[in-house]
């Protein structure tokens, strides 16, 4: 929720910056942000290309080419709108300011590391160092992502399913609630990683142990929020259905669960966040695959560029999965639009 909100406000903020100067967008108006972005990207490309590296980097030219390529795209977008009168696409306009900032950051980063080495060397990697990881070590990165996703998906699916069923049962049945509540209160707040030594000892493989831990971390928030969603369903909804002859299973499946769904999604969101942290810890501690393991391994070799590259990939993976979850929610809870504004 918080995420969606901040994302959106960032977007609108970006838009207002981008739109403000050229809002009229009359035929032939210059897209000033686009011109600036083009200029700085080309400048960054020139810096990479023509100032000699302090060390021998393999991918400096590729980096410069990519920067120049992005610069050219912005030139086309900006000039295209200047001469043809076609407005640059909405999407480009909204991300324009961000690309401008990105170019500045990259240029400064390039100068501080690859060109003048003003930052402590092995620890602060150069942009082309990261690029080199992506071009040369991508098979291992792809494999790591695949392993991480597989482990995460298995654990998360199990945890979400168990949490959902448990939450519905606790919220619906007083008897289940009586027995489950104290257990949940005792075990739930415990970080799943606290089980790590026991899990790796008790389970036959590190993979199954990690699946268990991820499922555990996911299940707790999903259970609690499903439960609270079910418990806070408007009683009148049940009366309406009962007076028309609804059975118990209808009340659960067609009344309680749909009404609790918004809350369930908050739980799924929190569970996903918790599962990420357990995934990384598990991969660093015992599983011999995945992005966490890759980072651990890179650190062992003082391959900091690899570490940052893996970190970046991990960030993209996590945000991608959260976005996916939000898409699913927006689809299932389309009826909520207008009640809750994002």
């Amino acid at each position, binding site marked *: 929720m918080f995420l969606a909100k901040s994302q959106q406000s960032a977007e609108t903020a970006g838009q207002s910056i981008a739109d403000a100067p050229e809002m009229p967008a009359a035929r032939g108006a210059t897209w000033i942000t686009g011109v600036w972005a083009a200029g700085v990207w080309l400048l960054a490309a020139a810096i990479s290309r023509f100032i000699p590296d302090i060390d021998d980097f393999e991918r400096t030219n590729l980096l410069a080419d990519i920067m120049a390529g992005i610069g050219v795209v912005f030139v086309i977008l900006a000039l295209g709108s200047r001469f043809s009168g076609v407005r640059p696409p909405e999407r480009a306009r909204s991300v324009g300011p961000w690309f401008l900032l990105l170019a500045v950051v990259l240029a400064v980063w390039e100068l501080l590391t690859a060109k003048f080495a003003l930052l402590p060397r092995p620890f602060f990697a150069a942009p082309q160092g990261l690029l080199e990881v992506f071009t040369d070590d991508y098979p291992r990165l792809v494999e790591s992502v695949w392993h991480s996703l597989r482990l995460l998906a298995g654990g998360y699916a199990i945890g979400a399913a168990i949490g959902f069923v448990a939450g519905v049962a606790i919220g619906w049945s007083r008897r289940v609630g009586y027995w489950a509540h104290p257990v949940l209160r005792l075990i739930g707040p415990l970080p799943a990683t606290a089980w790590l030594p026991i899990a790796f000892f008790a389970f036959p493989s590190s993979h199954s142990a990690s699946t268990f831990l991820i499922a555990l971390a996911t299940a707790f928030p999903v259970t609690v929020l499903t439960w609270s969603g079910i418990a806070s369903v408007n009683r*009148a909804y049940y*009366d309406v*259905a009962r*007076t028309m002859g609804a*059975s118990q299973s209808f009340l659960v499946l067609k009344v309680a669960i749909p009404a609790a769904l918004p809350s369930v999604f908050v739980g799924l969101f929190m569970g996903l966040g918790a599962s990420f942290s357990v995934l990384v810890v598990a991969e660093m501690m015992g599983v011999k695959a995945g992005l966490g393991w890759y980072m651990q391994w890179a650190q062992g070799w003082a391959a900091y560029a690899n570490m940052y590259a893996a970190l970046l990939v991990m960030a993209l993976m996590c945000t991608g999965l959260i976005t996916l979850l939000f898409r699913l929610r927006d689809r299932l809870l389309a009826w*909520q639009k207008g009640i809750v504004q994002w």
Partner: protein
Amino acid sequence: MVAAAFRVVADAGASVEVLKVSHRFDLHGKPLPVLEDVSFRVEPGGFVALLGPSGCGKSTLLRLVAGLEPPSRGALSANDAPIDGPDPSRVLMFQDPTLYPWRTVRNNAALGLEARGLKHSHSPRVDKALRLVGLTNFADAYPHQLSGGMAQRAALARALVNDPELLLLDEPLGKLDSMTRITMQGELVSLWERSGFTALLVTHDVEEALFMAQRVIVLSDRPARVRADVPVDLPYPRHRGHSRLADLRREVLRLLGLDGTW
């Protein structure tokens, strides 16, 4: 089966018997008597209005008749069988529309059919009910896209779709503007005449009660007792300007302790 579902005969209504019913709630640990020794009977196909001050226990009484709660004391029966739980033949239209926000108007209206597994065989009834309340164009809208009055009409459609023997109406027209209200009063009466269900209508509105019902039961302040049972001896269709209605109105207002105010 299908023919039975589209009854138009006048014997489709259930009789209702409320016998010495008292009810109390627990409010902050103290008993709150709401109904006190309420008794009345409604013949099959009858139309009875319940009139009483706010908070006297009218909605509670309808909930008891619907079988949503058992009374603290006394007995209720429908068709001479004790009421011991909700039944789709007795449909309560609640004071709040309480539409399900995750369902479209059409699917809200279809709720009763779906609950009984009749959704597919009886789906034309949903369209018929929506047409009746004038919501055909909003069949695919979600409740948050409706006005208060439209939501109440959707709730009415949801009740009517079940083709009840006993329709319990808890201020069904309370949120409508006065023009729609007058139209809907007429619509409800003609629907009742055509379908033959028994109707028990709770309302605040003396005119509405007198215009629609065959009998008006006037309840006292909380705890509610039956203060008077006023027959409205006028044939349908009624004329709002009828002098007999004006006389009855004065009498009912007096029973409610409001004689000086009109």
